[in-house]
């Protein structure tokens, strides 16, 4: 599904990712852990297409050169980014935003666009699972949402858009334990043999709820260690330095 090789990225002359390699097969969950400034968010940004980076190396998504695909097409083709800091868009009603986005993506997939009634039915069902209050959805997008509400709204969008590759950029940060559980349930319910996840996190606790197939440790723009979910526990115990020293 995703094949990144020898990828380097810099911003304003500063190299952030260095000869980075990663392969994700359909159905796999990969977790990327690493200290602040190790390049985790940069990876999420580059995969989703944010501008401003100088990029070298290769990244293929479903056999196509990902780096040449415009941002919105990546989204239409199934790449979803749950933002670390979801932005506020004043004036834009959340439901209208969700519906516009969903219908754009449905159209791309050759599905019938949903009318308002069908959409509302769907969004009600999905938001109920995530314990999102319905009234939030009639507010302006992310405006006045609490940190937890913003993150849940990201997961709601993920469940609506049913991506092929979901990238979660520190979705767990700022969540209380109940919200963390709800968010994890949301991710787990979407888990299937075709859908892959790339979960970026600081902490091991999210991985108590979402069991990854692989855990990668990212330090200084490079993966220094890869293991299974036990690696996350080691990290929690020994810290990044402890783990990287044993390399």
């Amino acid at each position, binding site marked *: 599904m995703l094949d990144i090789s020898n990828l380097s990225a810099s911003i304003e002359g500063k190299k952030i990712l260095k000869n980075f390699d990663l392969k994700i097969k359909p159905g796999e969950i990969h977790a990327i852990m690493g200290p602040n400034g190790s390049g985790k968010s940069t990876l999420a940004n580059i995969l*989703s*297409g*944010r*501008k401003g980076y100088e990029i070298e190396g290769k990244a293929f998504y479903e056999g196509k050169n990902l780096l040449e695909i*415009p*941002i*919105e097409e*990546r*989204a*239409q083709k199934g790449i*979803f*980014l749950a*933002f670390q800091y*979801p*932005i506020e*868009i*004043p*004036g*834009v*009603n959340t439901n*209208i*935003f969700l519906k*516009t*986005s969903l219908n*754009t*993506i449905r159209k*791309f997939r050759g599905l019938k666009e949903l009318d308002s009634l069908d959409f509302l039915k769907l969004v009600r069902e999905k938001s109920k699972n995530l314990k999102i209050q319905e009234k939030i959805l009639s507010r*302006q997008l992310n405006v006045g949402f609490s940190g937890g509400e913003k993150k849940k709204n990201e997961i709601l*969008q993920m469940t609506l*858009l049913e991506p092929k590759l979901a990238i979660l950029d520190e979705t767990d940060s700022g969540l209380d334990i109940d919200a963390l559980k709800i968010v994890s349930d949301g991710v787990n319910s979407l888990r299937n043999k075709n859908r892959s996840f790339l979960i970026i996190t600081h902490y091991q606790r999210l991985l108590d709820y979402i069991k990854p197939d692989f855990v990668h440790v990212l330090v200084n723009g490079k993966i220094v260690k890869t293991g299974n979910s036990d690696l996350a526990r080691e990290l929690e115990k020994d810290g990044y330095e402890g783990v990287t020293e044993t390399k």
Partner: protein
Amino acid sequence: MKQQELEKSKEYKYGFTTDIESIRAPKGLNEEVIKFISNIKKEPQWMLDWRLKAFSRLKNLKEPNWQKPKYPKINYQDLYYYSAPKSASDKPKNLSEVDPKLIETYKKLGIPLQEQKRLSGIAVDAVFDSVSVATTFKDELTKKGIIFCPISEAIRNHPDLVKKYLGSVIPITDHYFATLNSAVFTDGSFVYIPEGVRCPMELSTYFRINASETGQFERTLIIADKGSYVSYLEGCTAPMRDENQLHAANVELVALDDAEIKYSTVQNWYPGDKDGKGGIYNFVTKRGACRGKNSKISWTQVETGSAITWKYPSCILQGDNSVGEFYSIAITNNHQKADTGTKMIHLGKNTKSKIISKGISAGYADNTYRGLVKINSKANNARNYTQCDSLLMGNKCGAHTIPYIENKNSTANIEHEATTSKISEEQLFYCNQRGLNQEEAVSLIVNGFCKEVLQQLPMEFAVEAQKLVGISLEGSVG
């Protein structure tokens, strides 16, 4: 062929240029030209006298110069003040003769095929019998006693009404452009709604089918008699081109006791090219008088075209308990400039006014809200609420809010709110990541921003106007 021209029209979504016609008054502004116009319109002597009076006043007036957008000096002696509408034989025969870019825009706006033809100036074919449709409307209006006709016709057929109300809201001594209009106006609409009658249709419905080329000095007069109601829509979401650069229209509204007038404008005149060359100067005077008690006048405007938009649709709240409203969207892109707003003059007791203004600037454009709320000493318990929001795209454009408040009554209640915000790269990226392209993202954000005003438009236009808002800002990001 014409590759260059096609390239040029890509930037703006209009396409055709009108050919200069043979029947027109000679260049220049003088009594002879005014007599020529009056004569060709078969006007009675009193009308000509009125025009000449305005003209003699004009000689002592100077163009105002306090506005933000400046423009090169206009040589009024070098303009044509009358030219006849085109004849059918000079019009394109079918849509294939019309610039495909224009057709594309019509499609984007969702304008029906028959109307596309009419808008492109095609002589409408027999299948679509516009004359009979128009006649059906006219019959229905006539049955209710409603008069709706070109003002030139009203001058001949309803002289008492015209004499009584023309110039009663915008006097011929008002200001340079209004007075110029009074001297040389060519045509426009006249509406009279009799006492107690609710006009059964949006007058736009008729207008859209029967729109006439009224030229650059348009004059509109709408009178709503006691207890009547009318909703009138002027303009069109479709792009409009005109060979005349200066447009100085006058619109006068009069609402008597318990009457209500809702006046909506969608303005999409040629804005000039992306470097700011060409484009219409839209210097319009619009004023409504809430002359009777409990009367109401509501202005809604969506201004997306013109190189310079300079207008302040206003309400004189004379009758006790009368209400004035102003809802405005002004979009400026590239090198467009707008200086627009309203005046709410509170004279009567318990008068209320509401101003909602949304200004959007992109490219190198400059957008000014300028408004006056004036509470007279006798206007007890007057209330005003003003909200001015500006949205900026990019960092080369400007937005300004200049609210004037003059209050001479201590019982008044005046509120003013203003915000300025910017569409950020982050917001666009977020939308892109959810599958929307740049244009869709901008359209969504901007439509959200001006929702409160769009809601005021008649249903049938709201959808087109929403699309127009997106189209007007195409190419403004990324």
